[in-house]
């Protein structure tokens, strides 16, 4: 996720750097994004309970 979404490298470049094939990069990227989304969601719920209720 750092290489793809923060550093904006392509799937192929990321695969080369990590020594993975492109399918593995895609799978790991998806997994990382889902985890990041969950963490952000948890953070938003915890820090803004009043807004969530409205």
């Amino acid at each position, binding site marked *: 996720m750092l290489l793809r979404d*923060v550093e904006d490298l392509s799937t192929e470049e990321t695969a080369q750097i*990590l*020594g993975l094939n492109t399918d593995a990069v*895609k799978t790991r*990227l*998806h997994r990382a*994004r889902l985890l*990041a*989304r969950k963490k*952000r969601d948890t953070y938003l719920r915890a820090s803004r309970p009043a807004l969530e209720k409205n």
Partner: protein
Amino acid sequence: MAAHQHDENCKKMFALLSEYLDMELPAEACKEMDSHITGCEPCATFTESLRKTIELCREYQPKELPGPISRDARQKLFEAYQKMLADRRS
């Protein structure tokens, strides 16, 4: 019966969500995702929150390292990572 069908579609779309948001899906699969998301409110909400998460990552600009050093540091990190992988394999 409709609820079961709904679950199957949601699972299928869940797995393809990153590729969908990266616009890497074939046209046909993309159309299927579009129509599912349009008709499924929980999936629409989830997709939007994932899209926003990715957008925040893209906007994130690490400022600690100036350009030239960053490039050098990146190379060193790359070498260290390759070494770590090699050590792990052996």
